[in-house]
């Protein structure tokens, strides 16, 4: 891959954000889609993930480093239907567009799945209290009755989100 292709991405990370005050509370709607990989070797599978829709609320609980906890609901749809809960921690460095998140996923019904997720993304304010976010997210499912014995599944997704800041 040519280095020039990555230049705009790296430049965006280096540029400081507009310097808006960090919100205490924030609501976010996210949609994610990507590739799901399971197994290993010749038995490795790769197929599209379900479309995931998430609604979450985050609360800033630490100023330096700027950390926020989040929790919410997640829905898998498109080729199946399931509902679950998400939760974790978000790091948004001061004066930066960067957004790092790590957390867990628990699909409740109609089957169960336990997973851990991590994401790296960017957020841009499109209005005083609204922002658009994009991220690359990896989720590893390691337990639950939706997994065959001895297998795990890992999703790699592109996520787009809309954030609504409050307070």
């Amino acid at each position: 891959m040519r280095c020039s292709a990555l230049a705009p991405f790296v430049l965006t990370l280096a540029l400081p954000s507009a310097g808006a005050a960090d919100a205490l509370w924030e609501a976010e709607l996210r949609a994610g889609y990507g590739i799901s990989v399971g197994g290993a070797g010749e038995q490795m599978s790769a197929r599209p993930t379900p479309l995931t829709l998430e609604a979450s609320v985050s609360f800033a609980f630490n100023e330096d480093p700027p950390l926020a906890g989040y929790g919410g609901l997640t829905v898998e749809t498109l080729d199946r239907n399931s509902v679950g809960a998400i939760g974790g921690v978000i790091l948004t460095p001061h004066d930066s567009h960067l957004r790092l998140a790590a957390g867990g996923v628990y699909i409740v019904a109609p089957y169960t799945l336990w997973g851990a997720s991590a994401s790296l993304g960017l957020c841009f304010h499109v209005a005083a209290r609204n922002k658009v976010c994009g991220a690359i997210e990896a989720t590893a499912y390691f337990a639950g009755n939706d997994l065959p014995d001895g297998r795990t599944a890992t999703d790699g997704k592109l996520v787009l989100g809309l954030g609504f800041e409050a307070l």
Partner: protein
Amino acid sequence: MRAIAAIVLAIACAAGCTPDLCARNSDCATGLICSAAGECVKPPVDAGETTGDGATGTVDVAPADAAIDGQPVIESTPRSLRECCAPRQSRGLRRTRPRAGGIAAR
């Protein structure tokens, strides 16, 4: 944006394209489950359930269930009924006795 698309494509190519293999049970069609080998297969028949060809699975009875208070249990009695009515069974109230009409008492 082109860089992100290239990364996603690289992940897809590295993993290979095997759409017939599954990673989760919900990847399979209704009535099938994902095997450890990554193939969608019919689930094993539950114990006691009648299969499509008329065969019946075996029923595993734990040693503790084989007798309650020293009395043999009636095989056709459901487990929950056996547990709730065990004292009555010990008093002999659940034994089958032929009625005058020749029908076993329930």
